[in-house]
């Protein structure tokens, strides 16, 4: 019998992994919480502004469609859309079991399933990271990802005019989709100074050459901004949002390279909406639950993988944003390699070598992106005592600092339980990295990614016994 590979996440990494594992001859179950395959990449589907440059952007899209169709139509691939992995169960030995809820998220009584694969590929991606600032909890302040998803999916602009701020290369595609959807973008603010951004991008130009597609895309976005006369300013950030019940104006200011505010440079800009992004936080709860070690990098914690995308946990592979933030092509390449190895493919095969080289180039590119868009250590200087740090529980910066400063309550868990930071519905997905950073060095830390219930599960669903699954290629669930 051939190997059964379960892949969690059907973004570029997961689709790549499915293709790799299928190629190696394995039976694949591809699981994703959304209805559609494609992950973040699908949500940023560039068809809206494909009009701006139908040729190239459309070309990339066709590549994605080919991969998707190849995988989903493959006889050995079982595609489980609307299937959420809520828990991963480690055994004493061997590959962990995957606990899945099948069915529409809002529907009552999703079905509980358990998959026991020979190998598991984790590709759950990342989510938007937003640093807090006074007023960030006001309605009208959006994560860039949310704004973009609305613009693409629903052709809805979050407001008009809109200001886009934060750090990272994804400021540009977000601006582009909002412009395409018809919004007036006032300006795009990159918090890092031009020198840092340029140094990151210009160092080691040969890597740029191998990633020409990616860099070319960025140039195109920049061109679009120029045509619409949208200024792209570096070394400036939104340090406060103000408004009565909804954002009405943004306060922007010049930043030093460490992101401390240059006094006297504040400017007030009337806005209807504000989009912010400070990069991505990898979704590490599944790899942590599977027993994978994490690698600490200057850009934060990621899943540790070896040259074949093997994690430190037996039978578990990782690909895509959970191993580093590098964009869709990097994620896809890692996925192909992870899937090939997980599916029992020969690590010495020529194509595996080629994949490793492409992966390494993509990784180098990702490292450069991270270097060009670091998060300045002085950002907490924007915060005030009453600034909300955890939006679910309305924990303020002041109360967090007081709890951390008090020696009797000074442990990460005591601070968390005492201030409730991270205990609300988002389970610290938004505020977790922020709180960890604000507390680092002040209190002994706990693992902020320890979240054994990875996704909410209703009591009724939990109480009902699960169905065990063994793959049977003739009984594809998705074909029923």
């Amino acid at each position: 019998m051939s190997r059964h590979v379960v892949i969690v996440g059907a973004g570029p990494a997961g689709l790549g992994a499915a293709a790799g594992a299928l190629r190696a001859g394995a039976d694949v179950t591809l699981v994703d919480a959304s209805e559609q395959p494609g992950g973040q990449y699908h949500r940023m589907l560039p068809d809206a502004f494909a009009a701006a440059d139908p040729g190239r952007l459309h070309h990339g899209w066709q590549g994605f469609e080919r991969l998707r169709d190849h995988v989903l139509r493959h006889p050995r691939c079982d595609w489980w859309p609307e299937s959420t992995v809520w828990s991963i169960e480690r055994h004493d030995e061997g590959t962990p079991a995957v606990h899945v809820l099948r069915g529409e998220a809002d529907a009552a009584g999703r079905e509980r399933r358990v998959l026991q694969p020979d190998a598991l590929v984790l590709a759950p991606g990342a989510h938007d990271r937003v640093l807090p600032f006074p007023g960030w909890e006001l309605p009208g302040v959006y994560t860039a990802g949310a704004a973009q998803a609305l613009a693409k999916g629903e052709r809805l602009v979050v407001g008009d005019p809109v200001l886009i701020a934060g750090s990272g290369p994804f400021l540009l595609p977000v601006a582009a989709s909002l412009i395409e959807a018809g919004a007036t973008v006032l300006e795009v603010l990159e918090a890092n100074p031009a020198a840092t951004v340029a140094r990151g991008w210009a160092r080691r130009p040969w890597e740029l050459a191998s990633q020409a597609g990616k860099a070319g895309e960025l140039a195109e976005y920049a061109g679009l901004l120029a045509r619409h006369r949208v200024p792209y300013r570096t070394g400036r950030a939104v340090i406060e949002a103000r408004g009565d019940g909804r954002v009405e104006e943004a306060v922007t200011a010049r930043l030093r390279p460490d992101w401390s505010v240059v006094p006297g440079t504040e400017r007030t800009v009337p806005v209807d909406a504000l989009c912010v992004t400070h990069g991505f936080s990898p979704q590490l709860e599944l790899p942590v639950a599977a027993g994978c070690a994490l690698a600490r990098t200057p850009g934060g914690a990621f899943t540790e993988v070896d040259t074949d995308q093997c994690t430190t946990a037996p039978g578990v592979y990782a690909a895509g944003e959970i191993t580093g933030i590098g964009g869709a092509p990097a994620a896809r390449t890692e996925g192909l390699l992870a899937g090939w190895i997980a599916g029992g493919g020969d690590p010495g095969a020529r194509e595996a070598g080629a994949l490793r080289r492409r992966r390494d180039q993509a990784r180098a590119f990702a490292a450069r992106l991270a270097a060009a868009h670091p998060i300045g250590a002085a950002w907490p200087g924007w915060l005030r005592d009453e600034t909300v740090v955890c939006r679910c529980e309305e924990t303020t910066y002041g109360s967090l600092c007081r709890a951390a400063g008090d020696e009797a309550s000074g442990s990460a868990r005591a601070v968390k339980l005492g201030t409730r930071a991270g205990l609300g519905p988002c389970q610290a997905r938004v505020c977790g990295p922020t709180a960890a950073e604000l507390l680092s060095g002040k209190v002994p830390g706990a693992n902020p990614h320890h979240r054994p219930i990875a996704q909410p599960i209703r009591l009724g669903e939990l109480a009902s016994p699960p169905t065990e699954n063994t793959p049977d290629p003739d009984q594809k669930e998705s074909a029923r």
Partner: protein
Amino acid sequence: MTRIVVLGAGMVGAACARELALAGFAVTVVDRSGPAAGTTAHGEGNVLVSDKGPGPELELAKLSRELWPAILDGDPNADAAEWDPKGGIVVATTAEGAGALTEFAEGQRKAGVTAEEMDVAALAAAEPHLTRDVAKAVRYPEDAQVQPTGAATALLAAAVRAGAELRTGCEALGAVRRGGRITGVRTSAGTIEGDAVVNAAGPWSGEVAKRLGVRLDVRPRRGEVLVTAPMPPTVFHKVYDADYVGAVGSAAEDLQASAVVEATRGGTILLGSSRRRVGFDDRLRPEVLSVIAAKALRLFPMLAGVPVIRAYGGFRPFVPDHLPVIGADPGLDGLWHATGHEGAGIGLSAGTAAVLRDLMLGREPAIDADPFRADRPAVQSEGENL
């Protein structure tokens, strides 16, 4: 001034440090991690008399229940402890359970516990969302709850105000002995001298005892709790299934669970809890969580659609005869134990600290402390210290 080293800054160590510092001892609290980072942060905060039958543990529970309000009264951090004397309701869902509950409550009443029979109307008024499928319900107005880490850190802060020193990130490695006495503790941060040492290391106190060169059979017993998304007020008391009593009093290794349902100040509902003997294995088992969910739904079927957003678990410090250990070590002069409270260490910490203080001062404790002696066979037996 007599110097006392307290090993462990959990609920029990915090309560002991506070009492001892207030009694005039020079106290140093040592924890290898941070304050309230162990079991205390991984359980629930029930302060119960309802689950204890007549006997020494009930006496300790009654003493603790009396002391808690006094301890928190006027404490600047009392708010963090979230003391809530909301009362508990124990329900039996079967005829068999109803019989056992009737008998159990009768015994408790004789021992001075308030246990009020509830009729259908009173139950429906008290807990409108509870299942109507109840064979018997008893209300225990004395049951209360605290937020364990808040309570522990409040008591630690009180100890510090009374002169205690707190040393975190400092692991106890061994004993310094002179002439058959313990005169200090070797730690990862150097030697800490003391005229007496209190072992309050919770489920690790067996291991700590071993490091200090003595024997103490305290083992971990795993427990898990589910947390729902915040809800409008739905559950108003602490509500337990009557087989809670059965689960506590057993030592079976395999899974047991009994429903304990309570709302927290944050609006979430805590659903506990399981009891398993798995050593220090901290993996959460979906099938265990499933059993907890099923038990809770038997009491509150209307919660079926409510999302569970979190689960956590800890290791109860378990002694085979289900009684805490409070008293002097029989083999090593100057060493004291305050541990082994299993699933009740939060509630029992207040009484434990008062009893320990009196014993260390050579005074008569408020209750008979003999049943908690460290030289009893259950504690000194050749146990596999898991």
